[in-house]
């Protein structure tokens, strides 16, 4: 039973068509990863799903409800939460204020200020610090925590390891593993292939705004992903995806 459905989604940046007719579904409890080079359209795709970027075609449905014309803040209230690329914390607000802000989505559930701080213990001592003063890893944890505070049904994660020290990446992924074990539905954009293969149930390879290959993480080899990543043997990769 699919929770999130994306059908023939098109999105543009002016004349540039960043996403070209992408379709996929995500079932409840699944972790889906989008893999692709910079500029492949992954970030635009996630932003379009979250309502932060306009669609120029296609549709997004959450649990059967069409999200056309639903603004981002209403989507958050319906249970879609995006952890944006670059984290986008409110630097002048404290960590606690950043987290509490997400109560505006009006969704109650297991994630409260206390449980989020429990899941990201490194935030506990920094809760009254301005978010702008946090380290990269702490900021990423705060950004994920802020998204969790909306008690989302689907968590969209954009480049959570970008710009982080390896140790911080390991910590963020350790936290993600807990979320996944708890049955959170996740759509993940990640550059780090090893992390992706270890974390995701299913992998979609995106190139130039289209899905080139798709399959369970267990069946995807590094070679197949790399081929799709660079657009090499486009046909081979495409057929592999269909098989």
């Amino acid at each position, binding site marked *: 039973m699919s929770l999130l459905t994306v059908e023939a989604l098109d999105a543009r940046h002016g004349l540039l068509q960043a996403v070209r007719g992408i379709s996929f579904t995500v079932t409840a409890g699944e972790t889906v990863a989008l893999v692709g080079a910079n500029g492949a359209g992954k970030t635009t795709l996630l932003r379009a799903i*979250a*309502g*932060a970027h306009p669609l120029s075609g296609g549709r997004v449905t959450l649990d059967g409800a069409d999200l056309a014309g639903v*603004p*981002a*803040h209403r989507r*958050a*209230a319906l249970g879609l*939460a*995006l952890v*944006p690329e670059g984290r*986008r914390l*409110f*630097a*002048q*607000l404290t960590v606690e*204020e*950043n987290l*509490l*802000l*997400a*109560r*505006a*989505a*009006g*969704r109650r559930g297991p994630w409260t200020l206390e449980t989020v701080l429990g899941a990201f213990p490194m935030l506990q001592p920094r809760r009254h610090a301005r978010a702008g003063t946090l380290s990269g890893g702490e900021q990423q944890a705060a950004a994920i925590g*802020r*998204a969790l*505070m*909306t008690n989302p049904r689907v968590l969209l994660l954009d480049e959570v390891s970008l710009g982080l020290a390896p140790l911080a990446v390991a910590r963020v992924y350790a936290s993600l593993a807990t979320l996944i074990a708890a049955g959170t539905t996740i759509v993940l954009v990640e550059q780090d292939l090893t992390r992706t293969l270890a974390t995701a149930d299913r992998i979609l390879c995106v190139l130039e705004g289209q899905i080139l290959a798709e399959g369970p993480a267990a069946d995807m080899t590094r070679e197949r992903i790399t081929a799709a990543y660079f657009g090499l043997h486009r046909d081979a990769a495409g057929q592999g995806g269909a098989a």
Partner: protein
Amino acid sequence: MILLNQLIQGVLLGGYYALIACGLAFMFSVMRIINLAHGSLAVLAAFALWVLADRYDIPPFLGLLIVVPGMAALGWPLQRFVLQRSARGGMLIPILATFGLAVVIDNALFEAFGADTRSLAPYIDTLAYDSWSITDDITIGRLAALTFAVAVIELGGLQLFLARTPLGRAIRATAEDPDTVGLVGVNARAVNAAATAIAMATLAIAGAFLGMRATFDPYAGAQQLVFAFEATVIGGAGSLWGTLAGGVVIGVAQTLGAQISPQGFLLAGHIVFLLVLFARVSGFAAALRARVR
């Protein structure tokens, strides 16, 4: 002693300037919009209070119970149809749009009320001229003291509201990154509408004190805008306590300037404003140079 008296009067006068600057500073810090209709809207509020007092015998302080929500309600269409639409066109368009709005308000008031100068002072009994004599040289006007007290309460209250309440938090977050607040469920448009309503409510209070302490006519808005603007800039845009300090600096400069020469009153305020502005700009340039090196 005369100097001390001037200082005290200047500080109290600064309270009025802070009151009138409060809404301007608030809107600028929250929405990055410079509202050039600010002074005219304060005069509009003053006229509304005057109509209530003159035609319906409702004294100004009671009239505020009607005019504060009225102005706040006016904030919604102002935000929705003027500010929000013009802000899409960049930083300059809201300035032009609100300038146009100021012209419209001024001339509409002129159409409705003519060129006569009005005041709310006749409707507040002896408050207009009552005072406490502290020493032979120092007397403190009750209205001036009340103005200052209201300024401190209003600015302090707003500061607390921004720091402690969920809406205040949402307003600060929206000011910082209006594109991202939506992702955590905050409706940025509603937040901006609320912020505009708050700014308009402060304008109703400013209009009341404008009318009680002095006179006003349909074209009085521009002068009030200048005071508000100067207090905001001196105080450093973005901090409400800074706005109070900015108002006090102008008030003190004006009363001390008046001591030197009758023309010195307005002149001294403007000169201090320009000096602060130059210091800011050259300080900024120095910081920039230091950074380049």
